[in-house]
């Protein structure tokens, strides 16, 4: 059963179309939302987070639709959202800020609320800086603070916009572990540029570009889309859609391989890049 059902959602800002009849279904587990800058990921996430209303189309949360104030209220009670820029109050401590969000999430009982705040702070590993003003935190700590507030109340739907930006490798690993646990029985949507996060975490991936869904399926399926289209060589290949030098010093190519090319197993990133490269090449041809 879909926990979030996006159906033919369109949105434009002024004359600029941002989303064009986007449909996707988010079920339990971690869903990765991939796409280049300006693809419409954040706008779609904002619509799913009930910040913005779609111009057309619907978003359903289980059996609820945000068409009335009461339904909206109920949806928001069961929603966790970490925007790209949460807008921290710099003179609040980590604890105070998350406590503030907890109050706005209607966690009324002071003792229980504080317990919950301490719990989510612990989950993201910020116990030692819990009472430090946010203005004194590093970028990575702030990002973890953003995630922590989204975890308040263990919401059924967790929407995270670029949650791993600014995290060091250790923090990123810890974060993946955290999210994979959350994704057991609830829906986690991850808007990101980081294909390795999607590879490591997601059971479902949606690629968005130019306001439309380009791919909707599993990560292996996205990788598999590039099978037979990825090869390595010792030098540049003029026919490749994309070429880069990998960690071994060899050239890795995506596109239509020449005969005799050394094909390699594709990754999710290859599939994504091929999808994006093909689209952009298609645009160039057009």
């Amino acid at each position, binding site marked *: 059963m879909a926990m979030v059902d996006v159906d033919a959602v369109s949105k434009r800002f002024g004359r600029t179309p941002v989303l064009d009849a986007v449909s996707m279904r988010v079920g339990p587990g971690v869903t990765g939302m991939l796409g280049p800058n300006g693809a419409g990921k954040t706008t779609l996430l904002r619509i799913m987070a009930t910040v913005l209303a779609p111009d057309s189309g619907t978003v359903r949360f289980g059996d609820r639709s945000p068409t009335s104030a009461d339904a909206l209220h109920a949806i928001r009670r069961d929603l966790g959202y970490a925007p790209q820029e949460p807008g921290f109050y710099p003179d609040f401590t980590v604890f105070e800020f998350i406590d503030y969000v907890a109050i706005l999430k209607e966690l009324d009982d002071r003792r229980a609320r504080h317990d919950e705040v301490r719990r989510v702070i612990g989950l993201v590993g910020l116990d030692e800086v819990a009472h430090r003003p946010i203005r004194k935190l590093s*970028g990575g700590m702030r990002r973890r603070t953003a995630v922590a507030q989204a975890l308040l109340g263990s919401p059924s739907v967790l929407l995270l916009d670029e949650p791993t930006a600014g995290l060091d490798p250790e923090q990123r690993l810890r974060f993946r572990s955290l999210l994979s646990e959350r994704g057991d029985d609830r829906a986690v949507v991850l808007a990101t540029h980081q294909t390795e996060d999607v590879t490591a975490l997601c059971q479902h991936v949606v690629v968005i570009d130019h306001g439309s869904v380009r791919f909707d399926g599993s990560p292996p399926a996205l990788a598999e889309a590039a099978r037979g289209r990825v090869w390595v060589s010792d030098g540049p290949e003029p026919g490749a859609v994309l070429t880069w030098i990998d960690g071994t010093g060899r050239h890795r190519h995506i596109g239509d391989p020449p005969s005799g090319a050394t094909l390699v197993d594709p990754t999710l990133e290859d599939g994504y890049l091929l999808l994006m490269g093909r689209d952009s090449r298609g645009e160039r041809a057009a």
Partner: protein
Amino acid sequence: MILPFVLVFMLVTPLAAIFVSQRTQQLMAPAVGALDLARPVRGDAGLRGSTVAWRHLWPLVRLESVRLVRHPAVYLVAIPFTVVNFFQLEGSEVLVLDRDDVSLAVLLAPYGWGVLIASNLLTLRSRRWRSEELLATLPVPQRSRTAAHLIAPLVTLPGAAVLLAGWFALAARSDHVRGTARPAAVLAGVLIVVGGGCVGVAVARWLPRPLFGWLAVIATIVLQVNFGALDPRWRWMHFSVYAAETISYPRLAPQHHEVHLLYLAGGVLLVAAVALARDGLDRRSGALGGTALTVLLVTGAVQTAPLAEPDTALFVTHLEQPGIGQTCRPAAGVTVCADPGFEFAIDWWTEPVAGVLRRVPDAARPADLVIRQRARVDARALLHPEIASAVDPAVAWPDDREVSVSDRWRLAAPGDPDGPGRVQLALAYRTASALVGLPPDAWWSASSRGSAAWATVPLAAGGERNEPVRGPLVQCDATGDGRAVVAAWLAGQATPAARAELRRRAGEVVARQWADTPVAFDPVDNYLTGLPDVLPEQGAVPSGGEILAATALLDLDDALVAAAFADRWSELVAPGSVPTATVLGWLGSDPSRARAAVAATAPRFDPEIDPDADTDPPVLTGTCPRTRR
């Protein structure tokens, strides 16, 4: 001199508070990295949540209350002004709380400004830090957050109570405060503080820039000062009725302090409703706004309603018969009468009177001389029109032998830099005038009623005429009259402070070359707002020559001078002129020698640096009568 600095401070301090509060925003930016400085994302109007239950609101109220109490703007704005206000408690004239309690509401106004700025910035917090996107996804909607901001200023009540308690504690140990405050008049200040918080929230919701918070502070000052502050009715429409209260007369006008509290409460609730209406009018905020508007209109109507006849009659009686309700005490051979709340001043007023009587022959002391507190003639410009038209000014300011002490005379307390000299000299001179047969006070010459006889002050108050006030108030010209010399000498020797004041006045006469110009002993800064010239108060006005002559006599032995006058008292007060030169001749002097002596010894007076000096001599209406009226 200090006023321009105070004004600059008033303008700059709220801005500084805003700057300090915003400073962290600049600190934050580089650490965050790519701050999105584009317009903040706010939730769509079509996705507004319902208003939450009270139980969800209280934790938010609690948090915002703590934030408000900890906000630096409250202290940056409130503390300097409050310290200044407390400091002014020392070294000022006496406050009579039965009249001046309204100034306590003003004492809290800076606290209200601080709360306004702080509430404004706290309400703008989500916008300033771009957190509206996140907050829009949370179940508690903007309307509830606004409601919490509106309720939070209630947390400032203990602070207001502490400030007031501190003031009263200092007042209790001070000689500067007398009488009893009216609770409703004081509580108005508390509502002003809470109202400041609500105004800050409303401004933030409708005009979401910190600058508008500062402008709101300025707007409250402008409204308070310019919204018909001197009008006896419209002043009740202000936040504080202080504007005219200190120069008006509580015994002569209706006091609506309890109703004014309700009026302020209605205003605060209306502002709250306006703030809530930013998120759309729902049933609750509509009901709140409707109720507040009703309270505001009803209480406003009550406060500005024309006076009923019985009330008018009562106030006219108080004006025409000031003795009703006064406390009178025989002292030093005269009777001194004071209004309720001013009984303490009887002893103060008795001192210069006794000093005069001490040097007057026993036979010259009238048994029925009364020193009475009386409304100053400018009261008529501040009274309700019904009272002004019903009172007979010739009865209210009669041609009698009583010596009047005006309600507005300075009540100099210990430590007052101006000291009691001016009041003591003025009162002693008037008492002595009565004893030598000169009129002590200006009096109303026509027994007419209605606007014609009252035209002088309102016309002059229009501000377009720049000419001395002329009207039916009579002062006589005592130039060259030896009785004025005697009266001035009796006044000057009455007390040490009066002696110093007469010398100071003589120094001014010398510096201004006023030897032939009428010079009055003004016990107050004798101006009414908007009037271009002094109001006549003193009955017999000598010229500077008489003042110099009397000052010269101060250099002689007091007993010797008193004996010389006692020997010739009947000649002095009998019909027929005793010129100044004659009086000086009794003591072996003459006007030229007197002037020279005073010019050599009087305190130096620099008209350029004495802002209190009167620059315009009074306009007189005739020579003084030769016999007692």
